[in-house]
């Protein structure tokens, strides 16, 4: 994992000192609240429904045990002893006090962390495939590039006051686990015919109230051109993006309204001009970054004990069926730790749980931890012979829920329980759905199914790309939940389609149940996933489950 050099260390420390002074200047009146707002936002500090919220950056979702332990300590010392891992792979603390925040940032800097640009109209935390460096299907590890982008975007003088926020996602694998087409800029690492590394560059994706999938703006961008090309895109957007209407200010609208070809022409003109300002020294820095992400010293050991334990223990077996992914090295597995215990808040972890995960990563996981955009924690490198011990420790910490990729592995935004923008609750709906399907005991039979819930039109819960998406709205003071079907955030990306009238909070769980049980009736066989089934039969049969068979389902 990347370790700060002296430059990074000094940059982050000076940033903390600046923010400490800004808090002081807000208090003494030098800064108005309007002026302070973007400054605190670009340091990750929001004012929420009940209190301030601090969003800590976990760049490209990568942590090590020392960082995870420090997060646990900070959550305990200055907050309520837990944190919330987000869909942007950050960690949110929901109850900090303004006067403590500079000290919290100082404590983060002690372990090479910060909360810079986790909010505001600037380039946000770059996200990457959470299986980077471990996945069997990976072409190239995206993390060194992601770190290069972190450095380049940090405090970028030209792009701190963009029309709106700007998100970059990167994947090094043909199987897109980073949902790159929902990003303002998505990067897919590829090689050209000559075998040279580069990127397929996507632009203009985003969810929110106008969901759009990003389009290809460049088939092949040589690796060394990345940063000037990103500056060309950001520069074009900074000048052309709309500032008259917050809802039309994202780059997806800029690209849509100007047309991709005209936008591309603008970007290419800027790129020509800016390219010569880059001497190539960024590629030397990239070369210095790479060794930080060298593969760990993998072990070669027998896996008989794992197989024997697995054969003898059905609960462990169920966990290995859902929570493991194929590793590129024989004998190893990628472990997903579910932060979605049935009935719990999706993405929450207590300080004690953070420490357990840190300890396991240290003892069994080559010191590597990842936060996934699906709000779980990943141990990317665990030898299979260690899995029984890992699983037992996770069980004791209530972290061994076997539901990765299943009905109850739900993405939910904080919703009206915390967020000042929300129009409906999201967390309680997620909890009730999870509990209901746990009761029914059908999740494993149902198989892969992604439910994503947003508590308002801003779509932080990514409902547009959920196989089943749930959007909570306010209808004349009453929560109302709209369902979309057929969304997909992977390399076969699609935006979910609206099913029809929404459901009251008391009805939504029953509605989801009818959809899922209906799927079980009509799927071709157990191999056909929910999404495949929707794509084969279309929406109508599912509409019938939702709206025509209500009585039957209620009686069932």
């Amino acid at each position, binding site marked *: 994992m990347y370790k700060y050099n002296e*430059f990074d260390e000094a*940059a982050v420390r000076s940033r903390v000192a600046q923010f400490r*002074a800004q808090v002081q200047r807000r208090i003494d009146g030098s800064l108005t609240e309007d002026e302070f707002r973007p400054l605190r936002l670009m340091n990750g500090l929001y004012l929420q429904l009940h209190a301030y919220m601090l969003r800590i950056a976990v760049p490209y979702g990568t942590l090590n045990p020392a960082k995870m332990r420090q997060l646990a300590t900070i959550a305990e010392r200055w907050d309520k002893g837990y944190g919330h891992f987000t869909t942007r792979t950050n960690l949110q603390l929901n109850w900090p006090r303004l006067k403590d925040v500079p000290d919290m940032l100082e404590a983060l800097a002690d372990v090479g962390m910060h909360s810079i640009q986790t909010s505001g109209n600037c380039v946000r935390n770059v996200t990457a495939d959470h299986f980077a460096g471990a996945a069997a299907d990976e072409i190239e590890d995206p993390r060194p590039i992601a770190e290069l982008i972190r450095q380049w975007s940090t405090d970028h003088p030209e792009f701190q006051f963009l029309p709106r926020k700007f998100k970059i996602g990167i994947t090094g694998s043909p199987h897109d686990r980073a949902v790159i087409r929902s990003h303002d800029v998505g990067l897919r690492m590829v090689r050209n015919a000559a075998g040279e590394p580069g990127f397929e560059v996507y632009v203009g994706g985003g969810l929110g109230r106008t969901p759009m999938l990003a389009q290809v703006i460049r088939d092949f961008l040589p690796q060394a051109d990345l940063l000037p090309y990103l500056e060309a895109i950001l520069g074009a957007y900074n000048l052309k993006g709309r*500032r008259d209407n917050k809802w039309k200010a994202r780059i997806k609208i800029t690209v849509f309204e100007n047309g991709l070809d005209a936008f591309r022409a603008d970007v290419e003109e800027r790129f020509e001009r800016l390219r010569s300002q880059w001497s190539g020294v960024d590629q030397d820095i990239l070369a210095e970054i790479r060794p930080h992400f060298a593969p760990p010293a993998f072990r070669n050991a027998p896996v008989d004990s794992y197989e024997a334990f697995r054969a003898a223990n059905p609960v462990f077996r169920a966990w290995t069926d859902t929570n493991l992914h194929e590793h590129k090295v024989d004998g190893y597995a990628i472990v997903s730790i579910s932060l979605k215990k049935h009935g719990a808040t999706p993405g929450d972890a207590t300080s004690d749980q953070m420490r357990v995960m840190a300890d396991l990563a240290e003892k069994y996981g080559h010191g590597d931890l990842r936060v996934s955009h699906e709000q779980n924690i990943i141990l990317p490198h665990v030898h299979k012979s260690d899995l029984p011990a890992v699983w037992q420790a996770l069980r004791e910490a209530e972290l061994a829920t076997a539901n990765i990729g299943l009905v109850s592995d739900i993405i939910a935004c904080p919703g009206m329980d915390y967020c000042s923008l929300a129009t409906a609750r999201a967390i309680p709906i997620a909890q009730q759905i999870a509990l209901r399907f746990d009761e029914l005991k059908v999740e494993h039979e149902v198989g892969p199914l992604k439910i994503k819930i947003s508590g308002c039109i801003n779509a932080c819960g990514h409902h547009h790309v959920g196989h089943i998406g749930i959007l909570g709205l306010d209808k004349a003071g009453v929560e109302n939940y709209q369902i979309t079907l057929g969304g997909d955030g992977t390399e076969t990306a699609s935006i979910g389609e609206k099913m029809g009238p929404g459901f009251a909070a008391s009805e939504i769980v029953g509605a989801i149940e009818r959809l899922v049980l209906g799927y079980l009736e009509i799927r071709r066989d157990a191999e056909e996933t929910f999404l495949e089934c929707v794509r084969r039969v279309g929406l109508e049969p599912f509409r019938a489950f939702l709206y025509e068979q209500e009585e039957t389902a209620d009686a069932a």
Partner: protein
Amino acid sequence: MAIIVTDKGFTTDDFASPVRPLAEIDQVQDGEGVEIGPADDPRALVGVLGQVGLIRVRFPAFNDGRGFSHARDLRSFGYTGRLRAVGHVLADQYAMARRVGFDEVEIDESLGARQPEDQWLARANWRDNWYQARLRA
């Protein structure tokens, strides 16, 4: 009276020649100034960059960042003359302004009273901790 902020602190405006809006670009004489706003296209200035003595880039609101790209663009067109950010620019943005190519910032007296000289001087070290310069070199 307007305050001009440089790395040395507050000073007064010593630019004595007329400053014309972009609409009067055809009438610009050697050594005169030109002013552009956020919605203007600085490409319109390319023909006069060798003769103007000052380009003022207006910031009507501190959270409208278009002026930062205008400065970068003007420098990329080869403009080496005096470049000034004018209006609602915060002390906290001084380093950003300098890094994109502005030489100085012009603010009014009330902003200067609320954010006095020491708050601007605190960012006179804008060359420090500058990731983009390190990457671009």
